[in-house]
């Protein structure tokens, strides 16, 4: 028996929203999804008029939907933003080569300028080489640190004043769980913000912060958006996988858990007197850093000196305990 759209528009429902439990037809779903992102943007004051925004674009489902929706909303609500696509090539054979082709298609479909930066050019190391050096357990740490800095540098090169990424509600809920599991209080306090900004670094915004991963995939499916969908070959060993599996099981039982975890994360109150990192600048590259050397330079140093395997576990403890 076909279910009717909850809005009483008369059309047949095509999905049940995990976020609300309502059943919507295609048109009402598009409207709900887009309106919610618009609300995240306006209530969070994520942008200002005439701002140049670099959209972190990987060719994957989240950034493809992000680029599409930002362009759509920019036009519909006249945000007056100048949008650009920024892509990072980590040098992972078979993974990044193909997804970059998808970004190039996005560039053409959405008529947005595109810049691609590679780890090879920026750091002299591809992720494939990093993994050869470091092994498969801590390599994601390197990639995450390098990518954040690469996005920053690329955005500055493009003259952008902010970076938009496609992090979705599931990602943020996973991060909350991960930070709890690892005792990373400093990150726990920051990870739920829709805008993360620190002195000297470009603000990073997450317009899709409240979008469930399921809805992003459904949106892309029904809007017929093309995206590249392969798991990074090194991902199966990532610590995040534990949090992800757990979250997916929880979602099946009680779909609102994702929003509820984010709500908990946003409302955590920390004890006073906890040491938090003080912001300074890196003595090597000038990038924002809470240590004398920023994380990227520290990791690069350990790679270049051939000490990377010991380097990561010691340094990450040090960073965490200050």
């Amino acid at each position, binding site marked *: 028996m076909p279910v009717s759209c909850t809005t009483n528009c008369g059309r*047949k429902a095509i999905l049940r929203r995990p976020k609300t439990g309502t059943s919507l037809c295609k048109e009402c779903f598009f409207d709900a999804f887009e309106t919610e992102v618009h609300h995240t943007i306006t209530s969070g004051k994520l942008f200002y008029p005439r701002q140049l925004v670099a959209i972190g674009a*990987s060719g*994957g489902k*989240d950034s493809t939907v992000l680029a599409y929706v930002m362009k759509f909303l920019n036009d519909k609500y006249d945000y007056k933003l100048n949008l650009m696509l920024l892509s990072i090539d980590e040098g992972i054979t078979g993974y990044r080569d193909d997804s970059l082709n998808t970004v190039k298609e996005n560039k053409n479909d959405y008529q947005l300028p595109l810049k691609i930066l590679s780890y090879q050019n920026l750091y002299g190391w591809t992720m494939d080489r990093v993994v050869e050096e470091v092994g498969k357990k801590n390599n994601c740490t390197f990639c995450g640190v390098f990518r954040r800095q690469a996005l920053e540098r690329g955005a500055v090169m493009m003259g952008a004043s902010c970076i938009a990424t496609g992090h979705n509600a599931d990602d943020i809920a996973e991060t909350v769980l991960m930070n709890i599991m690892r005792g990373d209080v400093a990150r726990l306090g920051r990870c739920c913000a829709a805008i993360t900004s620190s002195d000297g670094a470009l603000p990073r915004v997450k317009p899709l912060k409240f979008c469930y991963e399921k809805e992003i*995939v459904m949106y892309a499916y029904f809007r017929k958006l093309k995206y590249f*969908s392969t798991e990074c070959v090194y991902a199966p060993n990532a610590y995040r996988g534990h949090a*992800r*599996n757990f979250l997916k099981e929880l979602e099946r039982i009680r779909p609102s858990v994702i929003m509820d975890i984010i709500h908990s994360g946003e409302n955590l109150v920390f004890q006073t007197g906890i040491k938090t990192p003080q912001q300074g600048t890196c003595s090597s590259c000038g990038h924002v850093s809470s240590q004398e050397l920023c994380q990227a330079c520290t990791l690069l140093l350990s790679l270049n000196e051939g000490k990377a395997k010991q380097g990561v576990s010691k340094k990450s403890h040090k960073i965490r305990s200050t």
Partner: protein
Amino acid sequence: MGSGSLKISVHFGGGAEILFDNLKQHDLELPLDNGTWNLKRLIAWIRDNKMKSKQELFVKDDSVRPGILVLVNDTDWDLLGQTDYELCDGDQVHFISTLHGG
């Protein structure tokens, strides 16, 4: 009743196709017997007949692994009774994985 089989098309997307020799569309003829062909039975059938390895990446207990979305004729299976949905001739079933980077 006419034919002795139930003809449906199964589509794999979002990376799930990798588990099935990178073939996105599989046209199936399922034998009509005394049992009911619902999604629960189809998923078990796919696991037993279309997968040589890594079954745990597609199936968990009597359903798909959490993170794999299921659509029948472009409709969310959450609206159709999930694994209890009974297949009809000509149905298009989509399995879309969300378990990859964005």
